[in-house]
């Protein structure tokens, strides 16, 4: 009896195998080879990969292009994460009350999130296009032609123009998470605060925002990881240009893999990107779960 119990228990290990094999072979194994490549000078062609230790990592700091790309990735991530959360929060607060009309608004704000980033990027490429683009055409009709710009071609504007696209696309998605978070705050808390004469702002600061903490943590972390990983928007809108003003790390890694064939150096940049993501995620968790236990 005991023995048959044991054998049937062992079948649980078998359940794991298909998933584990695929994952180890096509994900974990490449991850470790990537780490190894990053310590070599491999150009993707040569039969031999010469081990050069951490030289690629030191080169990252000397390479002006990678430095620019790192700065751009940081700016993009911080700005997009911050603004998309503000936008999502404000929208959620505006639509907190349950009503049919609010449901319609919720759906409208969420629609862009269903589109592919590829589709979103091309829509905005058209909006921004200098001659026939929608923004400049509308400005012309409104008699505000002086305001028209080469939105993606002007080095001072390109980054800001690019960053608007994720805000447009994901703002509604952030809102949905905040709305779900708002539903978790017991109505009684608001009721009793109202009876005590608390104003809307007081209730927002003392009840709503603390109650939204798990949603805030989730949104911040998801936006941070997503923004560091961003690729499609910039690939389509500017390909890193004009000059290097919108070049980000993900695009650089892609270029090193497919065009410059600097596999070793590109892998080092990829490892650095991973470290940045892990660092930011941990920092956000530490900052927001201070004095708290059990979140996440």
């Amino acid at each position, binding site marked *: 009896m005991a023995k048959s119990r044991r054998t049937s228990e062992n079948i649980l290990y078998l359940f794991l195998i298909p998933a584990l094999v695929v994952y180890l072979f096509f994900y974990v194994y490449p991850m470790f080879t990537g780490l190894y490549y990053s310590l070599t000078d491999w150009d993707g062609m040569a039969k031999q990969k010469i081990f050069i230790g951490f030289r690629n990592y030191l080169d990252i700091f000397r390479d002006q292009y990678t430095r620019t790309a790192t700065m751009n990735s940081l700016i993009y991530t911080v700005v997009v994460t911050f603004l998309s959360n503000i936008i999502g929060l404000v929208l959620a607060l505006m639509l907190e009350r349950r009503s049919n009309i609010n449901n319609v608004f919720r759906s409208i704000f969420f629609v862009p999130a269903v589109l592919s980033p590829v589709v979103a990027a091309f829509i905005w490429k058209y909006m921004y296009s200098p001659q026939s683009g929608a923004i400049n055409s509308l400005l012309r009709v409104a008699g505000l032609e002086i305001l028209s710009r080469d939105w993606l071609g002007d080095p001072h504007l390109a980054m800001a123009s690019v960053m608007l696209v994720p805000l447009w696309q994901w703002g509604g998605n952030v809102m949905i998470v905040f709305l779900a978070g708002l539903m978790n705050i017991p109505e009684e808390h608001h009721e009793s605060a109202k009876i005590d004469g608390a104003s809307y702002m007081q209730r927002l600061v003392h009840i709503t925002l603390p109650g939204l903490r798990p949603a805030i943590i989730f949104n911040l972390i998801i936006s941070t990881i997503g923004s560091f990983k961003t690729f499609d928007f910039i690939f389509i809108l500017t390909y890193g240009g004009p000059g290097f003003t919108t070049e980000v790390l993900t695009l650089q890694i*892609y270029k090193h893999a497919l065009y410059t064939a600097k596999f070793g150096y590109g892998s080092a940049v990829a490892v650095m990107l991973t470290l940045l993501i892990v660092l930011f995620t941990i920092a956000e968790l530490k900052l927001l779960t201070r004095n708290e236990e059990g979140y996440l």
Partner: protein
Amino acid sequence: MNKGKKPKFQLSRILLRIALIFIALLVLLPMLIVLVPTFQTVQESGQGILRLPRTLNLDNYREAWRQSKFHIALRNSVVITGSTIFINIMIGSIAAFPMAIREKNKVFKTAFYTFLVGLMLPFQVIMIPLYVLMGRTLKLTNTLTGTILVYVAMTLPITIFFFSQFIKTIPKEMEEASVIDGCGYLRMFYCIFFPLMKPITSAVIIQNMIFLWNDLLVPLIMIDKTALKPIMPRVYMFFGQYYNQWNLAFSVLILAAIPFLLLFLLLQRQFIKGLSSGAVKG
């Protein structure tokens, strides 16, 4: 007390409504504007986007479908998305099962954390090695099989995370009762647990579907044969070739967006639930 407040309350509600309508227009406008060139004739499109088309003719769509061989891209996308999701659910759900019901077992615990790592890593860190592994060692670039395998590996972490979190909420008594009934673990999983997992399964499917259908990067490095490209890379390529013919380029773009927009309208609640689930469990 309420009476005195009412007019002010109404006013703020009207202002709120106006603000919401304004934001909704800002959100919708870019999507509506790109519809204009798709209905314009070539002469009309020369006059810019403010020249609204007279009729809703579908010639551009027909032409764009034909020139981009859209049906081939559509087939590739359906095959890739469908197979990936099927394999992913099959092997992911059953792998999550022991991890969830034997949380303290060291092997299952280690496996679980190994999968979790994949949740955080950017694809770029495995991009170059994958390009080498698939292209040179296994010769699986330019095959749908290779692309599907990469996608299965990429989507497993989130699938396993969602499934195991969900299975943990199923009462332990379920397992004990079926053990007494002499039920093996395989039957226990398929007859008892799997049917209970329907809501989370649909959330997982929707999440993965959005990612798979919309992704550009993986096919970009895995496939360069036009005949094997799924929709998004095909759209990207078509745009490059037809950049000066907005009416055709945007027709393809709309064709690519439509399946998902329709699905969203039909399954709105599941979509929104699927995307926000796991978010606010705290």
